[in-house]
């Protein structure tokens, strides 16, 4: 399983990277951590003509508090996320989530920007970012823009990113500091992609009733799903109200679930419901 031929570029300035990708953008791929791209290339499921290595772009490595929130550069690795005090300050959810993402050797290379750009429906990061109300910063020669995570993930490996755009960073808003969060995932083996999972946030404090919950399912469809019916049923519900929590967690009939190789749509729905309830019960 050897990758097909490609040309390799390693720009040292963002403008350089954008200039390269502006020509024949659909034949080019950015290389961030490579933990998803390189396996696909080894299987020859992906065969870009040009690989643009982002490791020379120092700006993409920064984690810095800016006015609106915390700006995490696209090539920050999962390990770096886990080690960052700034990130923990903004949200504890990363501490819960990171141990579920593959294994340490993968986390040492895999990046947050890579996860966002790939939009694997079973990945944790997109759902976490949606729960935190985060935005994705994109740039191309045509300019730069921010897209809310809620609007960014559009389908199976499909995002709002145009072929000539580079994910520069992810912006975690200041509001995430006051969110209480929950996370639960089901995987057959530790570190596997989830067969069902959920990331939940609410702007109430841990002792208060749910107020404005965001319930984001992953691993059960072609993209992360906001379980709106669940959210509606949770508003005003006390955290100790097991019955209402259970009934809310079952309100999934408005969602379309995708089967996978081992699990039918019905199983996905049942597992999603269990994830939601167990995440809520722990919040």
């Amino acid at each position, binding site marked *: 399983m050897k990758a097909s031929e*490609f040309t390799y570029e390693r720009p040292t300035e963002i403008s350089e990277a954008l200039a390269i990708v502006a020509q024949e953008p659909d034949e080019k791929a950015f*290389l961030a951590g*490579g933990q998803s791209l390189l*396996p696909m290339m080894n299987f020859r499921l992906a065969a870009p003509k040009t690989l643009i*290595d982002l490791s020379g772009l120092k700006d993409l490595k920064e984690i810095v508090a800016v006015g609106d929130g915390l700006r995490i550069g696209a090539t920050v690795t999962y390990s770096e996320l886990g080690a960052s005090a700034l990130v923990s300050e903004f949200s504890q959810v990363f501490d819960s989530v990171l141990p579920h993402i593959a294994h340490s*050797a*993968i986390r040492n290379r895999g990046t947050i920007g890579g996860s966002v750009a790939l939009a694997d429906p079973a990945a944790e990061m997109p759902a976490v970012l949606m729960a935190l109300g985060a935005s994705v910063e994109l740039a191309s020669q045509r300019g730069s823009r921010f897209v809310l995570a809620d609007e960014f993930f559009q389908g199976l490996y499909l995002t709002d990113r145009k072929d000539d755009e580079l994910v520069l960073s992810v912006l975690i808003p200041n509001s995430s500091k006051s969110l209480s969060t929950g996370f639960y995932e089901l995987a057959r083996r530790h570190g596997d992609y989830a067969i069902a999972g959920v990331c939940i946030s609410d702007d109430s404090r841990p002792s208060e009733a749910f107020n404005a919950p965001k319930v984001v399912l992953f691993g059960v469809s072609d993209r992360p799903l906001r379980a709106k019916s669940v959210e509606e049923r949770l508003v005003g519900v006390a955290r100790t109200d097991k019955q209402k929590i259970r009934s809310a967690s079952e309100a999934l009939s408005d969602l379309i679930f995708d089967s996978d190789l081992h699990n039918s749509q019905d199983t996905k729905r049942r597992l999603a419901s269990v994830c939601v309830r167990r995440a809520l019960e722990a919040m």
Partner: protein
Amino acid sequence: MGQTKKIKVTVNGERIERDVAVRTNLSDFLRNDLGLTGTHVGCEHGVCGACTVRVNGQTVRSCLMLAVQVDDLEVTTVEGLADSGPVSALRAAFLKRNALQCGYCTPGMLASAIEYIEKIGDPDRKKIREHLSGNYCRCTGYQSIVDAICDVIQVGAET
């Protein structure tokens, strides 16, 4: 012949300069270009862990890195693990506990085990198993590997 690039990389303490085809991954570079065949290839998609080596002190899947990505970096393979300190203790423990059979997973397993001992160092068996959960072994059933790591941590704690 596709694009090549000259890289300068320190491998097991030795400065190496090579022209590599850009699509060559690190595991193939180590094995075929440098003759360091101790790093094994089991899947080429990052799941089995057999190819795990250290780059700038961090474990990585060498099948999921390109050789050109280690330009200016330091790579340590199983052949370059200094046979002293925790590495030596771990090798002795592996032997005593029979924590290897065919030996194919062993170099990657050692890399992950050393990372655990150095960075976490807790003799909790569940935690050890979680850390090793990215290294496939078909022969041993994992228990003896956990035993060996526990041995090293517990002895390390006593000294």
